[in-house]
């Protein structure tokens, strides 16, 4: 083939028509009910005559689930699609797997596509596990011969050998899901489209599924993967698409997409201002971030305002760009005597935070005021964001968060025992 692009979407859009129920009065006359019913029936009959869909509800609205989506996927690429609920991920997958057609634009696909939007699609409760393997396999696009060849492997993966000839309606939900995933995991198309299906079974089985997916991705197959599990996404995918209310942005590196997704915007606020006059913490600002010896030192200034004197602990949680916690600092949690006395009125408090050398990347801080082990007084999540742009000036390659090896560089010394 001239180019290696297997999926190309151009100006893709999908429109849905949704109906809204009008306001219902609590007390209505029979006359009104009949009149409204007649009106609605008339409208529906009109719709039907014009060959349109009958939408329940009194008013009808158009809704673009996807709008002007453009992207390309190369052969062997493992692409992660991320976005909040309702961003259009599932609609995009449904279009790509031919379940529904786009309203505008086009997609060009080269190669056999198998889509896995749900585990256990087509499972019939009355049929036995054995029968359902064949049924589900056929539904997912495997041939009879292919299923037969992989049958033992599938059964072994699912760990339900003993119940193979029991109707699946007698299965526990865990067994059901394991069997369903086992079939799906043995699909071998050229392009695989996977929706959030790894979130099934217990932790151990999930790990197994993730491993299997990694296996599939590693064999030069093109995979499109949707998940809310950022760890799974970053470990599986190379490139990414971020969907936000129907619009898409492509990233050549999945880490960038994830940062964008979890952080919102890149320009991080370095100052927090409270919008409540009664809050104790009124303002937090980053004064400086310095790199000293083998650590980063962050200097913060906190403006407090309190109606009375009180003793609190100031707790700070440091998180990386995936919002995973890295470390925790506290004044009072580890020793109650170190609680901070907040004076009456307005006061400025300076906070000095020392963190082992951080990797290049973005970070955020949660700030809590607590009465240790009793209650949270104030809880400001994602209060501040900052970016570490330089680290280890003398290193050949500075440590970066996007490598996926964490954010803190550990000190290591090596020597031979003679």
């Amino acid at each position, binding site marked *: 083939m001239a180019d290696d692009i297997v999926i190309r979407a151009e100006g893709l859009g999908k429109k849905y028509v949704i109906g809204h129920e009008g306001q219902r009065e609590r007390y209505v006359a029979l006359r009104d009910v009949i009149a409204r019913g007649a009106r609605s029936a008339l409208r529906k009959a009109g719709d039907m005559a014009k060959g349109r*869909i*009958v939408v329940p509800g009194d008013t009808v609205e158009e809704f673009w689930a996807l709008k002007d989506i453009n992207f390309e996927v190369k052969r062997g690429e493992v692409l992660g699609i991320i976005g909040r609920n309702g961003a259009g991920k599932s609609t995009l997958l449904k279009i790509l797997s031919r379940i529904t057609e786009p309203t505008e634009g086009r*997609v060009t696909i080269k190669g056999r596509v198998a889509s896995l939007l749900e585990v256990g699609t087509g499972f019939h409760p009355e049929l036995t596990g054995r029968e359902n393997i064949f049924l589900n396999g056929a539904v997912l696009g495997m041939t009879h011969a292919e299923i037969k060849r992989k049958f033992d492997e599938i059964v072994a993966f699912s760990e339900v050998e003993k119940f193979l000839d029991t109707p699946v309606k007698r299965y526990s939900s865990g067994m059901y899901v394991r069997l369903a995933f086992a079939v799906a995991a043995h699909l071998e198309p050229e392009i695989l489209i996977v929706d959030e299906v790894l979130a099934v079974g217990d932790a151990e089985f999930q790990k197994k599924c993730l491993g299997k997916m990694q296996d599939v991705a590693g064999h030069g197959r093109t995979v499109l993967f949707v998940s809310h599990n950022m760890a799974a996404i970053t470990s599986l995918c190379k490139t990414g698409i971020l969907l936000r209310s129907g619009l898409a942005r492509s990233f050549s590196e999945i880490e960038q997409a994830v940062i964008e997704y979890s952080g919102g915007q890149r320009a991080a606020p370095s100052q927090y201002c409270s919008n409540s006059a009664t809050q104790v913490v009124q303002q937090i600002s980053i004064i400086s971030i310095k790199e000293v010896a083998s650590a980063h030192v962050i200097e913060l200034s906190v403006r407090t305002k309190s109606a009375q004197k009180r003793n609190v602990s100031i707790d700070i949680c440091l998180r990386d760009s995936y919002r995973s916690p890295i470390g925790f600092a506290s004044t009072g949690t580890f020793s109650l005597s170190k609680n901070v006395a907040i004076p009456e009125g307005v006061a400025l408090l300076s906070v000095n935070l020392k963190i082992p050398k951080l990797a290049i990347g973005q970070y955020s801080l949660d700030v809590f005021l607590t009465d240790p082990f009793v209650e949270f007084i104030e809880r400001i999540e994602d209060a501040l964001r900052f970016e570490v742009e330089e680290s280890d000036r003398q290193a050949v390659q500075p440590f970066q968060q996007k490598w996926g090896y964490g954010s803190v560089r550990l000190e290591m010394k090596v020597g031979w025992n003679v």
Partner: protein
Amino acid sequence: MGTILAGEPRELILEAGRAEKHYWRDIWDYRELFAILAWRDVSVRYKQTVIGVAWALVQPFLTMVVFTIVFSRVAKLPSEGSAPYAIMVYAGMLPWFLFSSILSGASNSLVSNANLIGKVYFPRIIVPTAAAAVALVDFLINFVLLGVLMLWFRFVPSWHMVFLPVFIVLAMLASLGPSLLMTAMNVKYRDFRYILPFVVQFGIYISPVGFSSSVVPAKWRLWYSLNPVVGVIDGFRWCILGGQSALYWPGFLLSLGIVALFLWLGIAYFRHTEQTFADLI
């Protein structure tokens, strides 16, 4: 790597309203799914029932008994030639039950397989046709009862019997057209779910099931054949009753035409709406 694939993968373009270029080849590619869906429906059909497959026999047998009593004993309608009335009724009932069970099976098939439609791609026409295959299995079971009846009445079928497979195919084609139409419409307008039982209920009296179509006055005979089932039932009787039943050719040809028209209409409409099923269901 991909095991099924040979040679260059074909390019697929997805666009609004774009007709599938490889429509029929696609259906052929999915023949295994068709077989397995049909097999699923057959094997699930009589699970957890006591008399199992015998249920397929109960309805046509009892209907045959009642029709024979009502139309032959009470209404004193003539049979075709010297054939026993019961066999004449049953010969009409076989294609009628095939027709009506395909119609009702297919029409509800898409809606009851909504989870499949919404989650995987396959040519949608597979689902109603697989439902039709299930009806065929019931038909074959009913056929056994015909043999029993023939033994009971010591009725020997003629050589016309060899043409029966042709008419079975005709019966299926005759049901498939309206079924596809109904199936597609039922996805969009669930009203058809309520219309269907009427159609089936009226149909058995409108079609010559309980009586011979030769009792219809000659001047109405052609008009009567606008009902495609008339041609099918006449054909069945011609095969099963042999020389006792004469085929009315103008009417039969008209029925054939109607069957073809409905088939074309059904497939065309189904193809036209197929791509929106997932959004509507």
